[in-house]
């Protein structure tokens, strides 16, 4: 694994952009683009990532970028890839960079279609667990119990598991990552770049205004998500599932995760959880670890 100091110095997310202070998206995108490099074409649906670019006629992104309708990231990527292929430019990486809303919800169908037809691209869902661009509404990725402006008393359903859905598509590479583990993220993006076919990656991206925590804690929050087992980091390569970093121990049962309360209590969105809710969340998490423990043993 490459050391932090050896990560490329090239920056494709320029200074003076429109992200909120402490934004997780720019952290994630900086690292991913360091891995993919200059020969990347990006497509971005409606999301905070569209806003971050700043206003016409300027942009803060330094790789060619197509903005596209909220639900159309993966479909536009299929078009970009086909056009590149038709022109013999098979060395350019196609990156669809979408939020959880654009991936779990309104863009799911386009994503599933692209996975099924074998588009050669990397789809990254940065998951801040809500529609942050429109002011914190629930998404399919919003966890149980979280306050949003469309779930005032806490979300009643558990989140969708999109990485699991991606795996059900039998694609060559699925990986989850966290902005708090940049070398792991870098490595995964590099690997995805080398694999032919559809690749799905998902990055947990804690958003200070949306989750209601202090803007200096973005990375800390992403780290705690992993250390408490609220977020699992893994790779699924040709049917084989491997866990990375702290997630490995947590899933295998060899590492005691930090109490999830540590993570929940730092976030204003979980302020109104009852003790019962917390117990349910703990049970659900355990169930998830157990599921993945079995799954990783077998597959």
């Amino acid at each position, binding site marked *: 694994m490459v050391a*932090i*100091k050896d*990560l490329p*110095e090239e*920056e494709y*997310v*320029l*200074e*003076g*952009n*429109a*992200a909120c*202070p*402490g*934004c*997780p*998206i*720019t*952290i994630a995108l*900086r*690292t991913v683009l360091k891995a993919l490099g200059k020969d990347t074409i990006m497509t971005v649906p409606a999301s905070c990532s569209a806003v971050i*670019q*700043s*206003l*016409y*006629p*300027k*942009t*803060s*992104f*330094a790789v060619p970028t197509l903005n596209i309708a909220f639900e159309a990231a993966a479909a536009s990527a299929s078009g970009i890839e086909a056009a590149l292929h038709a022109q013999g430019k098979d060395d350019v990486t196609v990156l669809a960079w979408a939020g959880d809303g654009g991936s779990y919800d309104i863009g799911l169908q386009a994503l599933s279609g692209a996975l099924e037809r074998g588009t050669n691209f990397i789809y990254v869902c940065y998951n801040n667990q809500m529609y942050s661009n429109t002011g914190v509404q629930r998404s399919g990725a919003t966890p149980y119990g979280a306050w949003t402006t469309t779930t005032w008393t806490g979300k009643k359903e558990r989140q969708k598991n999109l990485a699991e859905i991606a795996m059900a598509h039998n694609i060559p590479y699925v990986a989850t990552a966290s*902005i708090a583990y*940049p070398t792991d993220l870098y490595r995964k993006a590099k690997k995805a770049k080398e694999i032919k076919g559809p690749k799905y990656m998902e990055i947990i991206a804690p958003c200070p205004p949306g989750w209601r925590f*202090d*803007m*200096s*804690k*973005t*990375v*800390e929050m992403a780290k705690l998500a992993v250390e408490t087992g609220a977020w699992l980091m893994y790779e699924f390569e040709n049917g084989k599932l491997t866990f990375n970093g702290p997630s490995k121990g947590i899933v295998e049962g060899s590492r005691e995760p930090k109490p999830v309360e540590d993570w929940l209590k730092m976030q204003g969105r979980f302020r109104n959880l009852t003790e019962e809710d917390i117990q349910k969340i703990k049970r659900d998490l355990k169930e998830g670890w157990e599921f993945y423990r079995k799954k990783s043993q077998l597959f």
Partner: protein
Amino acid sequence: MKTTISYPTKEAMGKTGSWRVFRPVLHEDKCIKCWMCWVFCPESAIRKEEFPKIDYDFCKGCGVCANECPVNAIEMRREEK
């Protein structure tokens, strides 16, 4: 023909350093050059020079660098305006 084609520009939103309420200040003596601050800065506002070099024209003062610095070499000071 006009369509919305934009060109990569630093300071597309202007000098975002003016958004800052707190200013990160590096204490070189403490710094162990782990480059955590550099890799995590959401603003690409830290450059890898001999020491981490914060670009105050753009640093929005989020404090992530200070929070992540393993040796507390970065201090957040209230911006005076």
